[in-house]
């Protein structure tokens, strides 16, 4: 990894106006958490619904998409990435540096707020908070890798990312049982389900796959996305049509 790439990337991610969204969405989640606590008297079940629904289902993929496009797509779109690419640096190093910045941002702006929201909405001895923290963390790794690569491959990364996050994970997953098992969210939830043990069912913290399967699928997906990302960044063409 390269410190200068990371610093420039971080400045680019936080220096643009849309960085405001990175604060607004988690703030919304915390407000919802407070409302949930007030409405359902701090019950862990209600808290878990908020965690698996809005936090894991909508906020996390959206934030990963925002961050991933912020660390790479914005630079590809305006052409400024040429200053990083026209250097004697391995493209792999550039990609890993950007992934690290992206993951750090997602942890700060999505994973930690998810834990805070669950803790606020209702928990018993911090179990649910930890379970959601672990699940969100694993989901964040996979989502960030997928969306960063998507940002290199396609100039319409935001559209495809939104379609995946909202349609595939939420809508289709709700109606077609088979689709539900092919989902980063479900794979990541398997970790939390295992952590909660017998409590999981009671708090309706459920995953479609077991933890071993979930972790393997997460690892394969992440590795595949990173591999493709390095390859695509190595052959990224930049040319203005003159």
């Amino acid at each position: 990894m390269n410190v200068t790439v990371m610093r420039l990337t971080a400045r680019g991610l936080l220096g643009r106006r849309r960085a405001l969204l990175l604060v607004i969405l988690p703030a919304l989640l915390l407000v919802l958490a407070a409302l949930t606590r007030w409405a359902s008297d701090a019950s862990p079940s209600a808290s878990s619904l908020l965690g698996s629904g809005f936090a894991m289902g909508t906020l996390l993929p959206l934030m990963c998409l925002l961050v991933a496009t912020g660390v790479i797509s914005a630079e590809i779109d305006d052409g400024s990435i040429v200053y990083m690419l026209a250097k004697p640096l391995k493209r792999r190093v550039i990609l890993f540096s950007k992934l690290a910045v992206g993951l750090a941002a997602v942890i700060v702006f999505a994973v930690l707020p998810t834990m805070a929201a669950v803790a606020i909405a209702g928990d018993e001895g911090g179990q649910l908070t930890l379970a959601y923290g672990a699940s969100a963390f694993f989901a964040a790794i996979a989502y960030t890798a997928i969306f960063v690569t998507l940002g290199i491959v396609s100039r319409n990364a935001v559209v495809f990312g939104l379609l995946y996050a909202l349609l595939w994970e939420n809508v289709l997953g709700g109606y077609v049982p088979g689709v539900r098992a092919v989902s980063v969210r479900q794979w990541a939830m398997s970790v939390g389900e295992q952590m909660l043990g017998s409590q999981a069912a009671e708090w309706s913290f459920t995953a479609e796959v077991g933890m071993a399967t979930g972790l393997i699928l997460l690892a394969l997906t992440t590795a595949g996305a990173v591999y493709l990302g390095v390859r695509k960044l190595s052959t990224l063409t930049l040319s203005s049509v003159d």
Partner: protein
Amino acid sequence: MSTLQLTGVSRWYGDVVAVNDVTMTVGPGVTGLLGPNGAGKSTLISMMGGFLPPSAGTVTLDGAPVWRHTEAYRSIGLVPETEAMYDMVSGWEFVLANARLHGLADPVAAARAAVEQVDMMDAKDRDISGYSKGMKQRIKMATALVHDPAVLLLDEPFNGMDPRQRLHLMELLQALAAQGRTVLFSSHILEEVEEIAGTIEVVVAGRHAASGDFRRIRKLMTQRPHQYTIRSSDDRALAAAIIADGSADSVDVSSGSLAVQASDFGRFVEALPRLAQDGQVRLLEVTPADESLESVFAYLVAR
């Protein structure tokens, strides 16, 4: 001393050919890549800078291919046409970051030398987003110069510059070439190119139309047949006199006015008023038919 070599280079996008079988050698000194807009200059520079693979042919820097060879950037400095930089940092921070990305031993000294070279020390601590177009261009230059490259590629560097900045950049490019560097810049303005480029490569519609020093190119351009449209009190009499005199290749009165094609520009310009006076014809209007750069280029291609 470094040499860029393009051999049989073509580039197409789908079924649109942007660059068509170009072979050229770019050596030390200033080379101007001249051509009208849309001729394929940027595509060529992208391929020279390793940001676009040629569809056919090879682009090499001192024998090694540029595409997918990031080590080549140790000796290439690139000034892209796009204006976007990392606008949220200051000019100084950005040049320094570029020095660090190059892994230079003393990035601070290198960044200072580059910023001094482009005369931006006074404004270096302001954010790039607040720079004028000319200042951005100079900071872009500094990022390209920071690692002391043997080859400098500039895509339309004079766009948006005022005359003073233009002069400053011209002097800088000439100074860099005098140090033995290979400097290539693109432009669609002949005067700009001939002022500083020792060698000119003319590209039109993706094809390499002409190559050489500016005197040769200038001669090619002025020796082409000139066309004039003339309105006079008696077109037919004037046409007869011009043809009889032999100072033009052809005359045409069919379109309602008199169209003349002359290959010897100097002789025709001298003869026309004399012939009109002798034949007692009043010249009402003499218009060169196609003096646009595009038509000059088109002639070079058709040649």
